[in-house]
Structure formats: structure tokens, C-alpha cells
């Protein structure tokens, strides 16, 4: 529109900046479009310069093509539950003295209280230490290998602590052939993944090792077709789950699919009864299943040259780490944040530990916080209205490469979940991914004390963007 044309058209201003100007415009009847703007790149001049380099048309074109490839792999991935096995027998690189943990790499000494509690508990559970004090000493001795789950094709809820004899899901992405792993839900109470490690916790782990895991494994041996997890996830979203903090529908669907085979196993009726009671004791049974579904999908999109799509978001209770497709296995980290949300009776925000767990792989895939609009029953977690929950899912469209037509949100006219977080868009818009998650008590041994929302630290994305500009931008 030329200047002269503007003079004969109704002025329709956009106000970017001082609100008082918008108010003056409104007072004059000019109905300004208002912005909720934040400086790109978190206001860091280096990052803005990096964005500029990545925006050059020839570079942007290359990135866009790579991101489309990444997105198409995420959407095409078909994770199937193939079986359950012991970590030592299945997870790549697992040894008798390896402890896998959630989040980016971290030394034992730097771990948060709950994660240290989980590690020492696991060492006792494995029989590597006679008690927790001995376990702490062993953990510091250098004889134990600590490694992120993510570096072993695995994810772990909360502390994510996975040791050799724990049972894990085996999920294969049948489209791309990669397999991913995650351990079993201890259900929601005083549990290892929240740092609890007393005898009741060890007893439960023993039972899971001796009865629960083997029975699930035996059931899946009888199910030669495997279970199509993406299809089941899609159904669960239509039933009101977002598959991170609300899993009641998914758990019902999963146990329904497993039940005929569980019944056919050679375990005693008493043992079967124990397994069904255990699954029924918490909606969270399928929580890890959706995490590993997401992991199997996101791994297929990893390592695509020039892609700025985020392939992992995870936290160890101290650091928040992300991985980006075009930079492969490299971690970009920033400080883990405090989760904000309603808490169980008797607890206050001062009791809460920092954000922890690999469960943000669900948001990386496009569910969890990104699918908030599918789960109006839990909008209280984000402290708002159903309408606001709808807004959260839509907002994530601004930072993602596309939508997943296989996993949809009925209330948004079956909009596919926003998928393929683009690190460029996160920095450009200042919109950080929204993560729904549990709040762990800051001290080991207490467990979950609430749930709410959290965002990644901006530093992780700034770091990633600078590296992308140096690699992709110069290629």
C-alpha cells in the first residue's frame, strides 16, 4: 500500500512498545493491534546477530528443508511396544555398575537431593552397597558409571535412575527401525524416582524386578503383534489426556490391551491380582510409556544436518539440557527452573525441588503441555481457565515446524499437536516451550508434592542458537 493509498484508507495501527501509545490510539478510536513482545534471543546481542545469520535467505532455505525432513520423520514414526526386558539385557551400553539418570550429564556430587537419593537407593537395590551410606561412598568412588538415559536411547521419569536389573519398556519405531527404552512406573507414592529410598521403596523395586517386570515381559512375548502406541496415544488424547500430567485414559487403554496376555502368563492368580492392583493404584502407569513413545519418534529426527528442530528436552534437577537435530548429540544447557503450580495439602513452594526428569520428551514430541487443550480437566495446573488452556496449545504453534495429523486435539477442531520445536522460532518469538510436570520435594525420600508448569531456561536455547549460527550459518 503506497503512502497515498494509506491516506485514503482507515488507519489500522500495530503498537509495538509503550502501552500508553496504544491507549492514546484507542482513545482516538483507532483500535490498535497490541503486542506482547519480548526482545528476540532473550535480548542478547550475540544471539540476535546469530538469528540474523540464520535468517539469510540461502541459509534459511537450507534450514527449512532440513526441518521439513525432521518433521516428516517425527510424523511418520510408528512406535510399537515390542516387549519388556531387564536393562542389562536390553539397553545399549548398560553394565552392572552403570547408573542411568535423567537430564544432561551430571557428576554425582552435583546432583540434586532427590537424584542422589535415587542413586543411592538403586545401588542398595542392586546389592552393590549394603546401605545408603555405603552407597553414597560407592557413588563417589569412581567405580560407578553415571550416564544420561538419553545417551542410551532411553528416557527416565523424574530422577530417571535406571540400574541394571530394572525392567524397561522396549519400543521400536517400525518406520525407521530405532528402538527406545524406559523403566516402569513405580506409581505415585514414596518412590525411588522422587528420591525416596527406604526399605519400602527397595521392597517395591524387588517386586517389580521379580514379578511385575517379568509378567509384563511374558505378556508381551505372547503378543506377537506388538502394541501400536501412537494410535493408543491418539485415542488417549481424544479421551482427555495430554499424556504427561494426565494419563488416566492412556493407562486404561494400555492395561486393557495388556490384560488378555497378562491373564495367559504362567504367574499365579495372586501375583496377577497384585499386578492389576498395582496398575490400578495410580493413573501414572502409562506415563513412561508415552515418554518412550516420544523418544522413539524424536530419535528418528536426530542428526539431520542443518536442522534446528529440538530433539530432546530434559533436566536433571540442576541443569536443563536440550539437543538439536543439526548438532547431533551435543547438549546445550541452562539452569533447571522452579515448577509453578498447585501443591498437595500441607506443602508450599519453598518445599519444591527444581525441574527434573526426561518427561519433557513428551513436549518435545508435541504432547504434554503442548496438548494442554486436550485435557481441560487439568487446567488448574496452569492456574487458569479452559480457554487459556486452549491458548497454550495454539501458542505453541508459533514455535513449531508443523502439526502432527496423527495425534489431534478434538476441542481445537482436531488440530494436530504442535510438533518439531524450532530453536530459531523460540529465540525469535521469546516464547519458551510449555512443559507440564510434577513437582518433587527438594529433599530425598518425600516424593511428589504437586504439579504445574515450567519452561526451559532461555540460556539453553541461546547457546544452541549461537552454535547453530557458527555451524549451519557458515556452512
Amino acid at each position, binding site marked *: 500500500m503506497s503512502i497515498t493509498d494509506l491516506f485514503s484508507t482507515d488507519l489500522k495501527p*500495530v503498537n509495538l512498545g509503550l502501552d500508553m501509545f496504544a491507549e492514546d490510539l484507542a482513545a482516538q478510536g483507532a483500535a490498535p493491534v497490541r503486542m506482547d513482545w519480548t526482545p528476540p534471543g532473550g535480548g542478547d546481542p550475540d544471539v540476535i546477530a546469530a538469528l540474523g545469520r540464520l535468517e539469510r535467505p540461502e541459509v534459511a532455505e537450507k534450514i527449512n528443508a532440513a526441518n521439513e525432513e525432521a518433521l516428516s520423520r517425527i510424523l511418520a514414526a510408528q512406535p510399537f511396544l515390542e516387549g519388556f526386558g531387564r536393562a542389562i539385557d536390553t539397553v545399549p551400553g548398560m553394565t552392572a555398575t552403570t547408573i542411568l539418570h535423567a537430564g544432561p550429564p551430571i557428576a554425582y556430587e552435583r546432583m540434586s537431593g532427590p537424584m542422589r537419593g535415587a542413586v543411592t537407593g538403586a545401588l542398595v537395590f542392586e546389592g552393590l552397597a549394603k546401605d545408603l551410606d555405603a552407597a553414597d561412598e560407592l557413588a563417589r568412588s569412581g567405580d560407578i558409571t553415571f550416564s544420561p538415559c538419553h545417551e542410551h536411547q532411553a528416557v527416565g521419569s523424574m530422577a530417571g535412575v535406571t540400574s541394571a536389573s530394572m525392567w524397561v519398556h522396549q519400543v521400536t519405531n517400525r518406520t525407521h527401525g530405532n528402538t527406545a527404552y524406559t523403566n516402569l512406573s513405580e506409581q505415585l507414592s514414596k518412590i525411588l524416582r522422587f528420591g525416596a529410598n527406604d526399605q519400602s521403596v527397595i521392597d517395591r523395586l524387588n517386586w517389580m524386578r521379580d514379578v511385575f517386570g517379568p509378567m509384563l515381559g511374558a505378556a508381551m512375548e505372547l503378543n506377537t503383534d506388538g502394541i501400536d502406541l501412537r494410535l493408543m496415544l491418539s485415542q488417549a488424547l481424544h479421551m482427555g489426556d495430554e499424556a504427561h500430567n494426565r494419563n488416566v485414559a492412556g493407562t486404561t487403554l494400555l492395561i486393557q490391551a495388556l490384560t488378555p496376555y497378562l491373564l495367559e502368563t504362567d504367574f499365579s492368580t495372586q501375583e496377577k491380582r497384585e499386578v492389576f492392583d498395582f496398575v490400578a493404584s495410580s493413573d501414572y502407569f502409562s506415563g513412561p510409556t508415552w515418554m518412550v513413545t516420544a523418544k522413539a519418534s524424536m530419535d528418528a529426527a536426530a542428526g539431520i544436518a542443518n536442522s534446528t528442530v529440538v530433539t530432546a528436552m530434559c533436566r536433571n534437577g540442576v541443569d536443563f539440557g536440550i539437543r538439536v537435530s543439526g548438532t547431533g548429540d551435543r547438549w546445550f544447557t541452562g539452569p533447571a527452573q522452579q515448577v509453578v503450580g498447585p501443591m498437595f495439602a500441607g506443602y508450599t513452594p519453598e518445599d519444591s525441588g527444581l525441574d527434573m526428569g526426561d518427561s519433557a520428551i513428551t513436549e518435545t514430541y508435541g504432547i504434554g503441555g503442548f496438548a494442554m487443550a486436550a485435557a481441560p480437566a487439568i487446567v488448574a495446573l496452569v492456574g487458569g481457565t479452559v480457554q487459556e488452556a486452549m491458548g497454550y496449545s495454539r501458542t505453541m504453534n508459533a514455535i513449531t515446524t508443523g502439526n502432527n495429523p496423527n495425534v489431534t486435539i478434538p476441542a481445537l477442531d482436531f488440530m494436530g499437536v504442535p510438533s518439531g520445536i524450532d530453536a530459531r522460532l523460540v529465540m525469535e518469538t521469546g516464547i519458551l516451550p510449555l512443559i507440564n510436570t510434577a513437582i518433587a520435594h527438594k529433599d530425598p525420600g518425600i516424593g511428589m508434592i504437586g504439579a504445574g508448569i515450567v519452561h526451559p531456561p532461555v540460556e539453553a536455547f541461546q547457546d544452541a542458537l549461537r552454535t547453530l549460527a557458527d555451524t549451519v550459518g557458515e556452512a
Partner: protein
Amino acid sequence: MTRYIDIRKNTYLDSVSLMSMSTKANAVEGVTQALLGMATPMNKEVLLNVGVQDPAIDAAKPSDLMIVIDAADDLIDAAIQAVDDILARKNASAGDAAEIRYRTLDGAFEEVPDSNLVLISVNGAFAAREARKALVAGKHVMIFSDNVSVEDEIELKALAHEKGLLLMGPDCGTAIINGTGLAFANAVRRGSIGIVGASGTGSQEISVRVHDFGGGISQLIGTGGRDLSAEVGGVMMIDGINALAADPGTEVIVIVSKPPADEVAGRVLAVAAESGKPVVVCFLGSPRTESGYDNVQLVSGTKPAALAAVLATGVDESTLDLHALNIPLVEEVRGKLAPEQQYVRGLFCGGTLCDEAMFAALATFDNVYSNIQQDPAYRLGATDVSKEHTYLDLGDDDFTNGRPHPMIDPTLRLQRLAHEADDPEVGVIAMDFIVGFGSHEDPVGVTIPAIAEAKAKAAARGQHLEILGYVLGTDLDSPAVAEQVAQLEAAGVTIASSSTNLGLLAREFVAKGDHR
């Protein structure tokens, strides 16, 4: 402290809602602890852990709702009521749609495709980037932000020119497009006079004077103060003149700027001549008096510019109140000042107003100091003490660094006013008060106490301190100019009727001999 325990039989609320309600209940006044939960074994254990024990709780079933409230004795009833309200979800707001705000310009353009102009006032470090996005999307742009590099300005203006768009700024304080004021602007009548201004308050002043003379404004295009520099080359000024030339709603064009770079001035005048419309040019402080073109008239100040423009629309001069300089007033003030009170101190919010007053002083005096003086020998920094005749543009970068503009925040000027009043050689303190969109809601009111104090200081040493004020605004502005003037008059301040007269009166009050 009172503990209230209530077990509601067969009342179910989901755990997520209960967590949220607990959080709210704990925030109720007087409540030290509120626990809401279904009576599941796990929740009962939680209550036990925090020391809540009661037979009613022991007897409760998982289908029962447990409510425990610990509150101060006198507040317990109110707290129970408040928690009841929370449980009843009485405050749930039904569908009051939050105002839509967009995170990115691209997002805004997508949702509001008919948006056509972006007013940018974010930190200058980010303004150029956003402006580029707006231009690429085909939107006109006004950049209010300062601290945008001249390289960015040149690049943005080239892009805007290529796309036929406005790029007003950076550091563009005012514009009126289609009758709507943008950023700092005054409520003026619409009419047939178009303004292109490189100086914000100069443009505001001319629009107000035109309004005062009964005329109106078709469009007011700001260019930003650097537009007429040799580097930028007057790109926006020239495009602005051409746009007004093509605009059927514009009969007369007014150009206002500090003196441009010579080669740019020549080009601007040539483009003005080609417009075929009467053009009034006010290059403040320029020695040039002839444009060399029949339809292009050079004038010396903002008021002459407004007058020439209004006359060019065909108004009969004899019907206008010209607000001629009040000679008897000059004599009266001279009579009140002591012999040693020879100097003017000008404390300005408006850069052009400062300029205009300073040039008026320079026509009579040599010893005129300012932070915007061209001659380095007479230039003052922000922290320098005033000397002899001093005219300060308090809205200049030296003063605004890290603080709001004096049109919004009067603090700096109030301090300076107190300081100037201590100098027994000062006879006149001249000040502008700018009302209108964007400005302080009562610039006179916040200054009155400091004026009274300044006058009292002078009186204490047996002097009359002349405070001369000018209110830039119209009867349509809020607050209206008459209201502000009345406040000043009540405080014993002498009123100038225009920026031009403010400069002349200030000078004449302390000058010797004939009036010029």
C-alpha cells in the same frame, strides 16, 4: 488459633482442582493452613504428617471431602466463608475473553492482515529488526525509538523507499496520519495543510499554531531528526513531500527542520518546487531567506510557518488574531528586573522549542550557551552549570540517557529550575509545557510548587524573578491548553502565546534598547 474441620459426605472433587483450591484457600486472609482433599488413605496420611488428627477424619471415606482450616480466632468465620466460596467456584469467570496480544509482528500481521502501520517504541537495539520485518510485510512504519544506528536508518529508508512505504524515524516523536495522532501529538482539526517534519516538537508546534489560526492538518509526517543529514540524504522528507503533493486532501505543504546539510537542502527545495503546491519551509536557524522557487516560501520560525500556510489556503489575514508581541508587557517586566538580572535561562522539553528560543537569543546576544549549540565554545554538557544566557534541551540524549523524556517525567527540570533560581544574575526563566497524546497528564501542575519556590528564593534576596511559560497544546487536548494556562497565571507566570513568541519575549525581557 481455631481449627475448623468439616467432612462433606459423598462430595467429590478431582485432585487437580483440589490442589488448585488449596493453594487459593491458603492465600485467604487469616488462614495459617488450609487442607482440602478427598479422604483417601494417602491424603489422610498427609494430614497426619502435618499434625492433623481427628476422629471425624479417621471415619471419613474416600468418597468424602475433607476440609481443614486453621485460622486466627477472629477471622475463622470469614475464612470458612471464603473457602466455601472457593469450593463453590463462585469466582470462576465465564468466558471473558482476554485481550488478544501478539508475540511477533508476523503473528499480528497474519491475524490482522489489514493492519497498515506499525508504531515501534521498543528499545532501540531491537527496533531496526522489527522495522525491517514490518517493511518486508508491506506495512508503514514509525520508529519512536532512538539509539538506532545511522547505518540501519539508511538501510531501512532505502527499503521503505523501494516499497513506497513510510519509514518515519528513528527517533520520530510525532505524526498525524488520517487524523490520528501517533506517539506525541496534539488534537488538532483536520484540514488541508500537510506537514513533513524532521523535528518533532517543531511539527507539533506548527500543527497547534495552524489549529489556533483556524486551519487544519491533512497529514503530519515525521522523518526523524537525522533524515536531512548528508548521510541519510532526506529520503523520507522527499518521499513525504511527494506523497503530500499527490494527496488530494493536501493544499499546502509545510516543511520543518533544523538546517539541513547544504546539498540535501537544495534537493528538498527542488522536490518541494515540483510539488506544484504552495510550500512553506522552516529551516530553523538557517540564514537562507530565498528558496529560488515561486511556490516555495522560506520562513524564520514556527509561527510564521503556520501563518504563511494558513494564508496560502486562502484565509484573509485581517480575520486572524496574530498574537503580536506585547510591547507594554516587555517594558513592564524590564522595569521589575534589577540591573544585575541580565540573563535568560531556558529549560525546555521540546527540542525545536529550545532551538527556536536559542536562535532568537542569538540574533541579539553572542553569549548564548546550550547543550545543542553548534559552536563548541558555547556548548554545555548535561552536568555543566549554566552560564550567562543558557538554553537547555532537556529532551536531548545527554539528559535522557537512562531516564524518561521530560515530556513524561519532569524530575530533571524541577531540579534544574531550583538550581537556576539561585543565580542572582538570572532575570528570566523560560519554560515550555507540552500537553497532548503521550505527554504528562498535568505538566503545569507538577511544576507549580517548584515555580513558587523559585520565585520565593528571588524574593528573599529582593529580586523579581520573571517566569515565562508557553503551553503547547490545543483546546481539544487533554488537559486543555486553557486549563494549564490558568494554573500558570495563578502562579504568577507570564504566558507566551507561541513557541516563537516565547523566544522573543525571553530575549526582549533582558535586552537593552529597542525592541526588534
